[in-house]
């Protein structure tokens, strides 16, 4: 149970990290 929750958390965190990186890259690419 706890391991399955941990697996889901890892997927959720991975998604957050990748989306956040893409968002920051988009904002930065339009800077200046």
């Amino acid at each position, binding site marked *: 149970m*706890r*391991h399955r929750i*941990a697996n889901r958390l890892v997927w959720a*965190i991975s998604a957050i990290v990748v989306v956040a990186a893409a968002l920051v890259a988009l904002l930065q*690419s339009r800077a200046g």
Partner: protein
Amino acid sequence: MKPSDKRMGVLWLLLYVVFALAPLILMLFGERPMGREFIRELSVAFGFVGIGVMALHFVLTARITAVKAPYGSDVVYHFHHRVAFLTLFLWLAHPIILAIRYPWARSLFNIFQGSWTTRWGVLAVLFMLALVLLSILRRQLKTEYVAWRIGHGVLAVLAMLAVMVHAYLIGRYIGTPLKHALWLAYGAVSVALVAYLRVFKPWQMLRRPYRVVAVRPERGAIWSLALEPVGHAGLRFEPGQFAWITARHSPFAAHEHPFSFSSSSERHDTVEFAIKELGDFTATIHDLPAGLQVYVDGPYGAFSPDRHSDANHLMLIAGGSGIAPMMSILRTMVDRGDTTPVTLLYGTWDWESAGFREELAALQNRLNLRVVHTVEHPPEGWQGETGYVTRDMLARYLPGDRAGLRVYLCGPIGMLDAVEPALESLGVPAARIHLERFDFA
């Protein structure tokens, strides 16, 4: 789980996300360089968030009790193993995106030709690759556990330092004093956590040594190791928890191994561990002479009935050396006069290797305990259960009221993977099944 543990569990998770993303978010604050193509900025963003995620591995593995308490050590290590793949992905994505999009960037990755700025980056990625591959292949390569652990720690520090130098030398996005300070803090905290684990904790252990009182043979190639504190009051643990033991080495040498307590948590004059001969260190346990000074770091782990006081029935399911924490739970119940009904389902190779079986038989007279043995290779005339713990077998021994039941499961990984879903299919709520996977490498 205690309500305070639950709150702390959510808080640590939020902090994890904040600290993982902080280097990335800070890219957008203060003085910012001119924007470049999206794909190039994405490569940089992956690199930055990769550093944030990497730094947090040092927190996950620093054995900080407050961090581990809400989840249990095995879950934190499991998380560490899984997030390692995310970290590797981010660290590899950074150069690979550049190499695919910009042909000129490919020559930079030649470690013999590039500038030191990129060399540090290439080195960091190589260290990271070695870190992950050596961990995945540890068993296939038959690497000795202690050697692997030391190498793992050294590679992690080298990877972190190399990537920090790489980002620092490039300088883009970290030009302001505030950003400089943040980067220094990430590097310093990572190194400080390694120092905490490898210098401060060993120093604490050195000040609180233990002495071997006895090493008793049990059935099933299990040894009971009894230790007494020397010059201090000993430690307090919950039945089911474990500690790291260092014997024949200085606590600074990182020659430590995790074992479950097997004695009652109510007894403080001596603590006992039940250790099965399985690997390089455990095969030498029986040679530990009485009087030898050893070191104990603990307790750790959330696998304990003390964390859940609402059970009206305990079901303990053990396979092989998984009996160790169960002995601690049962012996503690005797000392506390606890009359909660307990069923112990205990799987062993054969009847002769059923460790503690005489004591378990005797405990049935002192506790509200039913012991059920299942043996893979039964002796002639055996009338009990045989083979692995199956769904049908569980159905025979589970109490009718499953809402008030708490199940504690400890044994080989294959057994845990088979029994946990079987219990759920029999109506045991997933949140009431607790298990310990001893995989802290």
